[in-house]
């Protein structure tokens, strides 16, 4: 296996949370926060939990999160994001520290994919502990932005 560069502890990674992985309000069905489901292993997470390194696109800011989100979109077969989906982010050092508390030696490594050179994987992460999934959703990836509010530019061929 090719050795991958570890993402620096002070850097941040984004995780995509589709609408169905956010809790929907029981009355209005409006999306609430990020649910633990956003951190369960998905079909695209073969090498580890799939995330995007924000700092690959520059210093952490709304602009670089927008660039990272657009790159994530490029890596998707449909090239689409849900308007009510969200991107949640966390600092790598916090991810690793919490992983250690839960007995998991999580490593966050750079793993570029087509369309998203900032793609990274959270290795040695398993989704068998609902407590850990919930803690990630509420306390680790505690900040998020809804796609519709991020100002992600339309793809060139859509303009």
């Amino acid at each position, binding site marked *: 296996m090719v050795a991958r560069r570890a993402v620096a502890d002070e850097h941040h990674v984004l995780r995509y949370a589709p609408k*169905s992985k956010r809790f929907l309000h029981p009355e209005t*069905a409006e999306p609430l926060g990020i649910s633990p*489901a956003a951190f369960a292993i*998905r079909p695209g997470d073969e090498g580890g939990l799939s995330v995007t390194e924000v700092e690959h696109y520059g210093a952490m800011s709304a602009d670089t999160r927008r660039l990272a989100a657009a790159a994530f979109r490029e890596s998707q*077969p449909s090239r689409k994001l849900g308007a009510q989906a969200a991107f949640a982010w966390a600092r790598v050092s916090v991810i690793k520290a919490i992983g250690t508390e839960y007995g998991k030696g999580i490593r966050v490594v750079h793993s570029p994919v087509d369309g998203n050179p900032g793609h990274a994987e959270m290795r040695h992460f398993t989704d068998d502990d*609902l407590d850990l999934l919930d803690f990630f959703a509420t306390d680790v990836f505690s900040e998020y932005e809804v796609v519709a509010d991020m100002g992600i530019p339309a793809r060139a061929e859509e303009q």
Partner: protein
Amino acid sequence: MLSTLKFDASPSVSAARLKPLHLLQSTSGIRAPARGAVTRQDGGESATFGAALTHTPTLAERLFEAIADAKVWTSRVAMHLSRDTRDRLFHQLDMLHELDEWAEGDAAVSLDSFKSFVRAILYHAVNSKPALALMPNGNILALWADGRDKLTVEFLPGNRTRWMVQNVTASGPERTTSTTPLERLRDVLQPYNAERWFDGR
């Protein structure tokens, strides 16, 4: 019966995008022989159009079928559910499966998980209203919140549950997780005041 389930009223998987159910029933990926026996004018010899037809369901069809299966099954136990509860569950199902919001690779709602969820509502007389999400494998994830305290339950196939309780105390949050058979859920949650989650909100 199907007409009472408001398939075409869904604002998420709209009728305009989806085929009617009678078409879905014949396009669910099952091999069906072509019906095309032809009688020739010149001699009565007949032939049958060639190979069996196959159809891989589109994403819209798969989402529609999953929702339809859940709604049809719910209709069988609807006499035990209030109209409000049934309508709310259907609306939440629709909103969880919006086509424009769907992430590639995720599974639509698991009927077995949904059955566990509805059975929990019935067995434990749950009259509160949890927020819902879908696990990537299609399992229903339900959240009951009471201030910063919360109960999260993943409804597993086969009438099993995986749950997590957070109680915020003066010393900080306490978090407890376990798996338990569905019928034991209220009992095992009793130390955390299960009634506040299941009764009345």
